[in-house]
């Protein structure tokens, strides 16, 4: 599939969806709106709202807050995940001791922790960062743990026969293997950092995209809700593109599926 063709089709999907939304919310059929504009707003209203946010510059503050929460949650969660993942993988006994607690916390719906974090850390960014960290940590932790555990025995034996000591094994074998697993879950972990930030903001904050949406919802401003969702969607796509770029650079050694002919 050629790139231009693909882009055109992707654009078409958006155009059709917007048109349907527009027609059903602005034209009456059988004497009534099929989609009540009060509940569904209209594409024009939403677009106008987004434009206004950017023209007046009120949106930037929220974007900056959410972005910093995402970056902090991702960084702290990843660092902790890498450290603990490495530690557990190299010390099976420690892993066995903590195993039930890891399972317990991981299967806990993290949202129940949000009120606790708010009580502990206040309405500022840190309670959202904490929520994001609890999500990112486990993704990274499990992947790094797996990465260290699943080093091919042949590669490991080869490394030892080539004269590597424990430190060199860590640097040349375990570390790259763990990183490759971690990077392969980069999209998921960044996605969870966003979820942590936005959900945290939604549940109680003074700024951020989640806060914006929650505020609009509070006064039945549906256009505001949709505009917030739209900005959030674009925000996520941009972050995802950056992650893809980073991933390509870091995982150059990994096979990519050969381009299939169509």
């Amino acid at each position, binding site marked *: 599939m050629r790139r231009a063709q693909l882009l055109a089709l992707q654009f078409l999907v958006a155009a059709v969806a917007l048109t349907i939304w527009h027609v059903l919310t602005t034209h009456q059929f059988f004497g009534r709106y099929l989609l009540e504009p009060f509940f569904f707003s209209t594409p024009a209203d939403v677009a106008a709202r987004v434009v206004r946010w950017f023209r007046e510059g009120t949106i930037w503050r929220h974007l900056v807050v959410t972005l910093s929460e995402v970056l902090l949650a991702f960084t702290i969660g990843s660092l902790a995940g890498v450290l603990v993942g490495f530690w557990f993988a190299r010390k099976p006994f420690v892993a066995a001791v903590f195993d039930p607690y890891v399972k317990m916390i991981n299967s806990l719906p993290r949202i129940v922790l949000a009120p606790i974090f708010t009580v502990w850390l206040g309405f500022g960014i840190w309670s959202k960062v904490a929520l994001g960290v609890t999500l990112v940590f486990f993704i990274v932790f499990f992947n790094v743990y797996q990465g260290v555990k699943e080093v091919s025995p042949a590669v490991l*034996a080869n490394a030892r026969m080539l004269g590597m000591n424990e430190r060199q094994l860590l640097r040349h074998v375990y570390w790259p293997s763990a990183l490759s697993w971690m990077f392969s879950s980069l999209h998921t972990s960044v996605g969870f950092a966003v979820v942590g930030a936005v959900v945290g903001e939604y549940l109680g904050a003074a700024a951020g995209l989640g806060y914006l949406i929650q505020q609009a919802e509070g006064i039945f401003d549906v256009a505001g809700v949709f505009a917030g969702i739209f900005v959030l969607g674009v925000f996520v796509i941009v972050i995802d593109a950056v992650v893809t770029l980073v991933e390509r650079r870091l995982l150059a050694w990994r096979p990519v599926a050969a381009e299939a002919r169509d």
Partner: protein
Amino acid sequence: MEASRPTGSEKVVSKTAPAMRLDGVGVAYRFEKGSYPAVERADLTVADGEFLSIVGPTGCGKSTLLNLAAGLIAPSEGRIEVLGQPLQGLNPSAGYLFQADALFPWKTALENVAIGLEVAGISPAEAHARARAWLARVGLSAFAGRYPHMLSGGQKKRVALAQVLIRDPKILLMDEPFGPLDAQTRQIMGNLLLDLWNADRKAVLFVTHDLEEAIALSDRVVVMSAGPNACIIGDWRISLPRPRDTADVRLEPAFHEIHREIWAKLKEEVSKTYTQAEEETA
């Protein structure tokens, strides 16, 4: 064949000490539901500079024997000497070319070859320069920047060979190194190996399932019995003249004669493996 057991602890490295000596060595693999005595009372001596091949039916314990020689597993009985010294832990004099793919997938061909020098404390610049020279020797100069997944099976084996040889090990352990390659590539690789070996005559322990290949390459061929309790049951000296071409040497009458002799022995063991398998399924 019974070697006299050495008495006392002679720690002198004499010039005449064999490169490797396995003396009554046995290994039993333990697992949850019991244990499997893979190798028992295996005796094998590899002289300095000798090219020795091990052939035997599949699953008889050839890889096990090489892992013992490498020090990757410890024998449950018997003793192993390397250059006259008892082996403890990993064998530092050995380079090991594994049966499975063992290149570092996250390193380029050049980095894969250089790593053995780098971990030995040689500066990265020099290690890379010497790795380049080795890649040229195995005919892969143009592939220095490729990652293993971008190399063919034969190219990977050549990188692995350079990776092991760059450290200049006294003893070379090779486990079916050309196993998955096609017949022509095997012969090219065989000649390459003989060329490299001729340059400095390391002791080589070469495992293969291809008897012709074993004879074409080696000074000596030993046959392992079918497991369990596998040991060395036959030992032939191959006195074909060197230097050899691994393809041409197969046409000589002496080659056929020795092949017939060894094959007679090997065939017995191979058929044992299969009757055992049938009995187990019956």
